[in-house]
């Protein structure tokens, strides 16, 4: 199996769909297989998504808007945006730096470094919260020192941001890395030989080459950052209107029998997911070649 074949490319229209009869299934088999696939998707994805909106609008628009205009709900929206506004840029800077040194240089320990960057992907979100509690909690390693100096991390914004950065850590790096690798170093070397400075080379050659990958990574990173529940719930302290992000606020409302408001806030998040999907699909259709490492190079 070649590496290229394993390097997935963005969803493309099926070029050979319905192609040569000689290898196709009968119409009946096709219809059955399509039906099975669609029913499965409906059960796993369609119905849950639909239920969010049905439950949210169960009692009509007024109740829906009331649920969203609650000051605590608005505070949760603000906090969620704030957390994403910090976590995403941090991950962009990190992702570009990591991709740059892994893609453009050969050094020992590269595989290990790549694996470590991947690690947060498979670490349970609960653990990503737990580690910060153990580190910065009042009973933790640095807790007493932080307390003495009046620094709040756990149960405050910094803790939530840290946990969010942890869970979204590999997202940008992983999107940009294959692109940078596929472009090689020839362009940058040429620019440097012509006398451009390192930064200038980065801004004019490297970044434009991977910009769609960065955007793509930002999109995914943002979706996860705004939607993270497990990690944030461990470090949040659940102070209504202060340290509850939107997913946590959904849980709180849900536990207050305020189902409509819970699903109203959930519908905002679902909407965010849908917008993310639309943008992502647009990116894939328009810039498929720029996004896929084996596209043109």
């Amino acid at each position: 199996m070649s590496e290229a074949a394993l390097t997935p490319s963005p969803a493309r229209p099926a070029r050979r769909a319905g192609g040569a009869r000689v290898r196709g299934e009968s119409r009946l088999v096709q219809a059955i297989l399509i039906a099975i696939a669609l029913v499965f998707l409906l059960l796993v994805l369609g119905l849950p998504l639909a239920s969010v909106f049905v439950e949210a609008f169960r009692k009509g628009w007024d109740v829906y808007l009331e649920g969203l205009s609650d000051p605590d709900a608005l505070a949760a929206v603000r906090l969620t945006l704030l957390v994403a506004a910090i976590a995403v840029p941090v991950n962009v800077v990190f992702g570009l730096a990591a991709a740059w040194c892994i893609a453009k240089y050969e050094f020992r320990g590269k595989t290990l470094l790549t694996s470590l960057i991947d690690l947060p992907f498979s670490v349970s979100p609960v653990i990503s919260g737990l580690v910060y509690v153990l580190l910065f909690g009042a009973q933790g390693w640095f807790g007493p020192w932080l307390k003495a100096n009046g620094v709040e991390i756990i149960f405050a914004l910094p803790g939530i941001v840290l946990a969010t950065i942890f869970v979204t850590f590999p997202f940008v790096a992983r999107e940009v890395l294959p692109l940078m690798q596929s472009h090689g170093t020839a362009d940058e070397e040429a620019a440097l030989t012509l006398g451009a400075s390192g930064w200038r080379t980065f801004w004019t050659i490297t970044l434009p080459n991977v910009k769609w990958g960065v955007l793509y990574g930002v999109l995914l990173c943002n979706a996860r950052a705004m939607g993270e529940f497990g990690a944030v719930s461990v470090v949040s302290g659940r102070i209504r209107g202060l340290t509850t992000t939107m997913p946590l606020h959904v849980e709180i409302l849900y536990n207050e029998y305020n189902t409509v408001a819970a699903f109203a806030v959930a519908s905002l998040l679902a909407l965010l997911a849908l917008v993310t999907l639309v943008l992502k699909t647009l990116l894939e259709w328009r810039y498929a070649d720029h996004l896929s490492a084996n596209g043109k190079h």
Partner: protein
Amino acid sequence: MQAAASRWRQPSILPGFGLALGVTLTALCLIVLIPLAGLVLKAASIGPAEFIAIARSERTVAALRLSFGAAFLAALVNAIFGMLIAWVLVRYRFPGRRLVDAAVDLPFAMPTAVAGIALAAVYAPNGWVGSLLDPLGVKVAYTPLGVAVALVFIGLPFVVRTVQPVLEEIEPEVEEAAALLGAERLRTVFTVVLPAVFPALITGFVLAFARAVGEYGSVIFIAGNVPMVSEIAPLLIVIRLEQFDYAGAAVVGVLMLLASFLLILLLNLLHGGLRRRYGHV
């Protein structure tokens, strides 16, 4: 410094290696490695005997078995249906195909807590699907089966998005040749297509599995959270934490961390590094 550096890395005229590596390592250490080291230290602080006692306690074993068992089952379901969905999307044309194609990524973008309450609403005995299954004696929500359903939701795109591009790359000529040589359609699929996509399928399976093992947000809403029955390992961590049992939480955490690390290692062994998996893959 330069001379020392060049021993472990090949020289390059590109500048900025030091800066980029510095930023990378600093972020990696501050955000990931030091906190994880803290976890390991905490778990180690209770001594090996105690560690093994907690690790082998009935409840820990049951929680880990559920987390891994349900994740395995979910990944298996995803492998089968993900393969089917990828096949249908690549090979057939039907109205709304592009929409379905885009919709497969929904679990990537959907917050897990939202997925959890939505799945619970649909699969509870009084929900849309649950009310149909209940007369048949099948209970999904609040049982281990519910855990698996949530994990299927979480893992689905991983399989579809790893298999799909490989299916697209398969040259039709091979299949045509097999057909011309008189092979039945089913046999062609199993002897020509399946072997070609198998590595991708395995990768997708492991990805879905790795993601599912640690999943928390979507599961707690739909699992019954009964100790030893429907209590997943991440929830056990939270419960231990809530009982002031920091070391107990850390032990379960370390065990899961170990599993995560092994899975990532396995993935890297599978094909020397993962690629673009989080999105469309």
